């Protein structure tokens, strides 16, 4: 296997990473290794000459992402080495275009060399640089070496002949589709895409038109009828004269990745809810503080006033006695006067009322927050429903505003809208992300200069679309930031403040609604986010 391999890892005095190069040497002398420690040099090398595979170490930090980008631009497969168990990192790497991921840990060297070998094998097969082996139907021509790799690789591999029948399937493909040994051979590929038009079956298009596909999401149907989401890549098979002989397709089960994606969504939701809860807790804590203090003071006031009352009772007792003893009455009246003075009853009576009024005002504030919370959590089935966008936006804004009312003026301009078909909970999550970002941008600017923070909300109906704009006068963003805000995990905020998932999640949620999310920004002036959502057809809900 002749191949060029580019390895990039940060330089280390005592390289634990020597193991990386060593592991890759297991691939044999025919694989040329080029080792780099500097990202810019590696990027230049990637551009300058052809590599069959690039291997990137996670310790490159941010350079990892830019190198992945480079690799993707050059259509070079990229294998990322990561820390064991860091699923978020793995997912991020896949999203950024990694074609494989190997974790450090036990059997690292073996895993790495196997993964690299698979990737190279895959590349070379797709590029057609090794004579195609299966069309001969004679496994004898397949040398043991490549056969071993193909049978053991983690991706499913299918070879399809000119008629659209499967002429070879590796064991991973058989497992993925839920059939026994050798049962796929000779079967029509269409069997695995029931109900699909020939047009939609990518490998058939490759057979017919010679089109290549790389990592396209496609749903396959297993033998037992269950559906599996897969990422599929297809390349035409050609003979020595360049005549089309069929296609080779490689696919990967995406179920696990989908599960990871769902977890990320959940994490993001928890993060926003956490922020919201902290803001609300804060706003409730102040009134709670003085209501609590006032109640315990009022208990003391009451004790003192009860002392006065006891003297009043005494005085009445003396006055009611028959015949009245003037001396005793005077005595009781003097005692009453002394107590009134000692406890400062005049003040107590006045302040009793004040303390109650202030406490009532506090409880009214708490009540208003609870009402906002209730409106915010209302109507929220996770199901598709008819949404009142103004109400969803307004209830979210009110609750988020609780935590920012000290520093931000909120202006609302809502136009009457038709009800829209969507997932109200998800839309609120998007609005919440936009509002929290706007607030944080204002805080950041306010830390540097005198600022009257302002967030403007606007909704309008434009034909069959609803347009929602959230505009702030916060710090704004330079173009480099603006270009990356929708990338998962991209954040300019401190650790613990931002996870960098808010906008990428929002982007996906809006996309799932068939809408768009866009941003405009100017450094030092502010930012405006624009959400466009199609109204959809209410009849769909029936």
């Amino acid at each position, binding site marked *: 296997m002749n191949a060029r391999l580019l390895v990039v890892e940060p330089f280390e005095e005592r390289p634990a990473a020597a193991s990386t190069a060593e592991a890759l040497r297991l691939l044999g002398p025919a694989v040329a290794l080029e080792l780099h420690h500097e990202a810019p040099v590696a990027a230049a090398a990637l551009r300058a000459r052809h590599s069959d595979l690039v291997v990137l170490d996670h310790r490159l930090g941010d350079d990892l992402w830019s190198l992945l980008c480079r690799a993707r631009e050059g259509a070079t497969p990229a294998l990322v080495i990561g820390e064991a168990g860091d699923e978020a990192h793995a997912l991020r790497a896949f999203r950024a275009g990694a074609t494989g991921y190997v974790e450090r840990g036990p059997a690292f060297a073996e895993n790495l060399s196997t993964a690299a070998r698979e990737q190279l094998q895959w590349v070379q097969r797709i590029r057609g640089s090794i004579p195609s082996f299966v069309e001969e139907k004679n496994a004898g021509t397949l040398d043991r070496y490549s056969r071993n790799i193909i049978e053991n690789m983690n991706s499913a591999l299918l070879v399809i002949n000119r008629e659209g029948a499967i002429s070879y399937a590796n064991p991973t493909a058989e497992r993925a589709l839920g059939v026994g040994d050798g049962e796929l051979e000779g079967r029509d590929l269409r069997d695995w895409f029931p109900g699909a038009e020939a047009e939609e079956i990518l490998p058939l298009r490759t057979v017919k038109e010679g089109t290549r596909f790389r990592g396209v999401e496609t749903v396959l149907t297993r033998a037992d009828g269950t559906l599996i989401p897969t990422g599929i890549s297809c390349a035409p098979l050609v003979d020595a004269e360049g005549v089309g002989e069929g296609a080779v397709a490689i696919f990967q089960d995406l179920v696990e990745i989908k599960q990871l994606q769902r977890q990320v969504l959940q994490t993001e939701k928890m993060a926003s809810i956490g922020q919201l809860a902290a803001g609300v*807790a*804060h706003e409730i*804590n*102040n*009134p*709670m*503080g*003085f209501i*609590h*203090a*006032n109640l*315990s*003071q009022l208990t003391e006031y009451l004790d003192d006033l009860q002392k006065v009352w006891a003297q009043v009772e005494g005085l009445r007792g003396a006055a009611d006695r028959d015949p009245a003893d003037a001396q005793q009455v005077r005595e009781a009246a003097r005692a009453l006067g002394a107590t009134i003075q000692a406890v400062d009853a005049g003040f107590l009576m006045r*302040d009793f009322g*004040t*303390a109650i009024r*202030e406490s009532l*005002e*506090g409880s009214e504030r708490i009540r208003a927050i609870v009402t906002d919370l209730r409106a915010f959590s209302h109507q929220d089935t996770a199901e598709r429903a008819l949404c009142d966008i103004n109400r969803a936006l307004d209830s979210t804004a009110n609750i988020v505003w609780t935590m920012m009312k*000290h*520093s931000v003026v909120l202006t609302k301009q809502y136009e009457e809208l038709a009800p829209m078909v969507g997932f109200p909970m998800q839309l609120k999550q998007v609005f919440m992300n936009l509002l929290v970002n706007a607030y944080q941008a204002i805080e950041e600017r306010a830390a540097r200069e005198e600022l009257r923070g302002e967030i403007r909300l606007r909704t309008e109906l434009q034909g069959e679309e609803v347009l929602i704009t959230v505009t702030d006068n916060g710090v704004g963003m330079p173009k480099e930031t603006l270009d990356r805000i929708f990338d998962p995990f991209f954040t300019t905020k401190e650790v613990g403040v931002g996870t960098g998932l808010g906008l990428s999640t929002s982007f996906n949620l809006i996309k799932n609604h068939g809408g768009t999310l866009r941003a405009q920004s100017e450094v030092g002036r502010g930012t405006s986010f624009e959400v466009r959502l199609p109204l959809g057809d209410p009849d769909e809900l029936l």
Partner: protein
Amino acid sequence: MSETLPVVLLVDDEKHILSALSRCLRREGYEILSVGSAAEALRVLGERPVDLIVSDQKMPGTHGIAFLTEVERGGSRVPRVLLTGWPEEIPQAEIERAGITALLPKPWDDAELKSTLRSCLTG
């Protein structure tokens, strides 16, 4: 007589908190000054001596910690108490930098408030 009473400066942006604090300290024999922001508090401190500062943490503009740190930088030795709903969120280093004598939770316990202030003044 009133000149000899210890002067306590209360700082909180929430005026009902100020009034609840004064209510609680009513019988403690202090002269109480209440202000609504760090800026106002600094102005008062420039005008007259005080014996104790009790400040809220979360206020618009300058937060309690920043305000008390500024007091510390000015070379003041006045004991100071920080009132906060989330005492555990304030790093020890910042507490030291601001020369804070005691932290009090919000909502506070009346008896704890009184005893903390007393020990700040005698200690």
